[in-house]
């Protein structure tokens, strides 16, 4: 009986086996199996490595250079006399370079205080999907600024280091969806020399920024830094910028309104004198043009 069962089972398998193999599968692709989920970096959280003023969680692609021309016009409250500020302009010209997918450097010069600045930005963790993925990008920025104005008091002994300022920033950001990206950026700014004895050398601030993508080529962006410790008692305010990123192919235009004049971290965090409530707001734009310096090699 046992043998018979075995025989019939074997016979059954042998008869049906090839029949199953020969059966016509509707979806041939299923035969070769699903691809294993791979770790994949979430890209394009912002259109540009800057939200508006502050650094964004996004990086330049390796081998590219971002030529940035930034303009901030005069205050709107100046009215028709100064054509709502458009008669005046402060600018910063910058060159940023993408070295690795998570490493970039940049230099820039602003007309405001004739200040030079340079930074290095590195992300140990990038937001990704798949195995061993991270829900957020963590990036660090370290920068230096150098005031280029003549000494305010030439009669005293002045040191070169007095021109320098530094900033250190951590960016934690997440692209929540195709539409929404948010980030926070705790920042510390150190100034070697401050104007008044009562001004602190160290300023601690928390930056927040985000993007709402409105269409394939237009996004609403905003960027706010709240100074937590070290804000002088009067005359200085927290910088808030709101605007639109418009992508036109090779260029990204960032058009916005901001109460800040400065275009590096030291300047816009510690030296913003405008007030939104009093229309002491400036129209400004960042023009970003990315050049491919080194062609990406096709992976073999």
């Amino acid at each position, binding site marked *: 009986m046992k043998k018979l069962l075995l025989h019939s089972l074997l016979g059954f398998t042998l008869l049906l086996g*090839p029949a199953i*193999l020969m059966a016509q599968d509707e979806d041939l*692709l299923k035969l*070769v199996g699903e691809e294993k989920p791979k770790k994949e970096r979430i890209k394009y959280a912002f259109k540009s490595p800057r939200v508006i003023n502050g650094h964004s969680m996004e990086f330049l*692609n390796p081998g590219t250079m971002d030529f940035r021309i930034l303009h901030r016009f005069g205050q709107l409250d100046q009215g028709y006399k100064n054509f709502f500020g458009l008669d005046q302009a402060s600018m910063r010209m910058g060159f940023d370079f993408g070295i690795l997918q998570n490493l970039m450097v940049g230099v820039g010069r602003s007309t405001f205080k004739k200040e030079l600045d340079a930074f290095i930005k590195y992300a140990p963790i990038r937001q990704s999907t798949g195995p061993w993925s991270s829900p957020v990008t963590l990036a660090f920025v370290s920068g230096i600024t150098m005031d280029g104005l003549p000494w305010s008091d030439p009669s005293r002994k002045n040191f070169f280091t007095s021109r320098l300022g530094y900033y250190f920033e951590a960016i934690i950001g997440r692209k929540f969806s*195709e539409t929404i990206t948010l980030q926070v950026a705790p920042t510390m700014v150190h100034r070697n020399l401050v104007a008044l004895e009562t001004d602190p050398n160290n300023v601690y601030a928390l930056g927040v920024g985000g993007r709402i993508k409105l269409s394939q080529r237009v996004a609403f962006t905003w960027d706010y830094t709240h100074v937590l410790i070290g804000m002088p008692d009067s005359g200085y305010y927290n910088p808030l910028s709101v605007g639109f990123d418009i992508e036109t*192919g090779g260029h990204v235009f960032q058009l916005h309104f901001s109460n800040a004049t400065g275009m590096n971290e030291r300047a816009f965090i510690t030296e913003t004198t405008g007030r939104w409530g009093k229309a002491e707001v400036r129209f400004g734009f960042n023009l970003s043009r990315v050049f*491919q310096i080194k062609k990406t090699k096709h992976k073999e």
Partner: protein
Amino acid sequence: MKNYFVLAAALMLFAFSSSAQKFFTKSGKIEFDATTSSSPEKIEGVNKTATCVLDSKTGAIQFSVLMKGFAFERALMEEHFNENYVESNKFPRAEFKGAVANNDVVNYSKDGTYTVTVKGKLTLHGVTKDVETSGKLTVQGGKISAVATFPVLLADYDVTIPGLVADKVAKTAKIGVTCALEPLKN
């Protein structure tokens, strides 16, 4: 009992020979070219991770390709391709499902090159359209190489090119397919 093993061996052999009717690759090459005479630079992308399965018995053929796998020389072009044109987050893959219309002209057990007509449906950017093209199947040593090129009218697949760059991007992209298919063992 002995007879059963002989039978089993014979049937297994038959099963293997029948499974060799299918051929596949996971490293097929798909090239995308939307360069026109007025393009300031070459608009070319290449993907070397396409999956293709061919059933030599019925002539059924299928392709699947991840849109994010297209690599461009310029990073910005790759960004625009994914973000603005094919929207690879929304539509991660392109698929083709069709058949070799004149499958009977191909002798899969004999080395040689055969000109074939492939008909089927291409799904790209969420839109499915009928596609027909001629290509070449080369049988050599039990392996098959498949080569074809066909045009894709981008507007057919709701891929819109903004007015500003409309004359710099071809309205019809050339798609090149090169696959080296190996027998599929179950």
